[in-house]
């Protein structure tokens, strides 16, 4: 439903559904994974019906997330190619975090920070999938030497922790930048939002209008 014809479509229904399918998988994986990460988080395993169920389900949800992410990757990767403008944006990221965007270069559909987020998430996904298969004791660990299993256990935990940090930043950036979350919820952003945060993209889709 779009009741304001002036709004700009940022994400199609398919893109939104894909994003939230990945997002929900990630949340389930992060919470159940944390349960095995440190005993302080062990009660989180109840989320998937207890620790044994969490152990059984976590890897399957992981494979699901990887498949869903691959679909998202091929849809978005071209939009995330890092350009000179993005490098300039990234070099000034400190000013942005400080709440001063006056000197930030004009972003296209995605700014440098969002693009870095995309590529880091993609790298994390690959590392988590590969290491996750090696430590999937029920089906695959028997095929690998013990040294590789140990390395993969360490890698899986480290990359997962890094990715949780990445997603905390991702979620916060969406909350911090008012008017952003609706883009992923129902697909549209206001014209003002587009002009403020992604002026190059705004010009591109409005043909230079205001």
């Amino acid at each position, binding site marked *: 439903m779009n009741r*304001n014809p*002036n709004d700009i479509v940022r994400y199609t229904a398919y893109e939104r559904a894909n994003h939230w399918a990945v997002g929900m998988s990630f949340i389930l994986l992060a919470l159940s994974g*944390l*349960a*095995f*990460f*440190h*005993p*302080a*988080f*062990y009660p989180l395993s109840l989320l998937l019906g207890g*620790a*044994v169920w*969490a*152990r*059984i389900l976590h890897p399957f949800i992981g494979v699901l997330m990887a498949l869903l992410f691959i679909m998202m990757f091929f849809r978005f990767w071209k939009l995330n190619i890092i350009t000179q403008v993005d490098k300039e944006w990234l070099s000034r990221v400190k000013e942005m*975090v*400080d*709440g001063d*965007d006056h000197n930030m270069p004009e972003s296209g559909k995605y700014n440098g920070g969002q693009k870095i987020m995309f590529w880091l998430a993609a790298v994390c996904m690959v590392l988590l999938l590969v290491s996750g298969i090696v*430590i999937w*004791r*029920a089906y695959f*660990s028997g095929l690998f030497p*013990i*040294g590789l*299993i*140990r*390395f993969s*256990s*360490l890698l899986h*935990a480290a990359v997962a*922790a890094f990715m*949780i*940090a990445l997603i*905390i*930043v991702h979620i*916060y950036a969406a*909350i*911090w*930048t*008012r*008017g952003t979350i609706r883009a992923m919820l129902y697909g549209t952003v*206001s*014209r*003002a*939002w587009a*002009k*403020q*945060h992604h002026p190059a993209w705004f010009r591109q889709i409005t043909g230079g209008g*205001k």
Partner: protein
Amino acid sequence: MALQSLDIKARSATTTPSPSARETMEVAKLIDISKCIGCKACQVACMEWNDLRDEVGTNVGVYDNPPNLSAQSWTVMRYSEVEVEANKLEWLIRKDGCMHCADPGCLKACPAPGAIVQYSNGIVDFHQENCIGCGYCITGCPFDIPRISKKDSKAYKCTLCSDRVAVGMEPACVKTCPTGAIVFGTKDDMIHHAEGRITDLKSRGYANAGLYDPQGVGGTHVMYVLQHADKPELFSGLPKNPSISAMVGLWKGITKPLTSFALGMLAVGTLFHYVMKGPNEVSKDIEKEFENES
């Protein structure tokens, strides 16, 4: 197995002290390989006492039978034929099973609270009712001992007959050994006993006879007297300097609470960022530009 409960020295995935009102003597099982005749009575006794019946397998061409440890075979004899000196064949038979490390890699790696415990007497025991079947104990073990059951996905291994030891009996394998190759007692007594055996072996020409009580894992509560203590690998690949892998140490060490803290701080930090810098809103100028349209 869970009979002793007030003398727990360490408990997997537990950050607070465990019940430790009771203190017991440190025990050890000493396996004298030079006295072992490979009769497998210990394997049978282990099955009997623990009520285990492995599947009848096939002969793989050597005496090793079953050929490996399993969820139903907590101890197996491993036979190796070696020529340490030219033209002098030696048949080295090692009873393999859990070493009950003082610093157990399985316990360190286990993410399930109370699935692995270490009693003050040194026995490392699996409590299957808490086991979630992840197999991290296998990843952590320097001796490749734990096995996950295909039937119930729980990890199993030698308990050092913790149920027998708790009531003052020796492990079943010790009780049955016909040559006295396996003895059991306090760790100090077993070290002392081993010294006598080593002296004897040295006088018989085994110059490198010695005790296998690897310090890399803090010593073990199953020890071997080896004819060739300088080359433990001869005994079906007994590791020379076993220790918990550095990768497991890093995976399960101080890094985890530190990382957890950092993630928490990051989440809290975003809240502080929001309240201190304010939201990133559309500027009033731009908003006004579009006001008439909407």
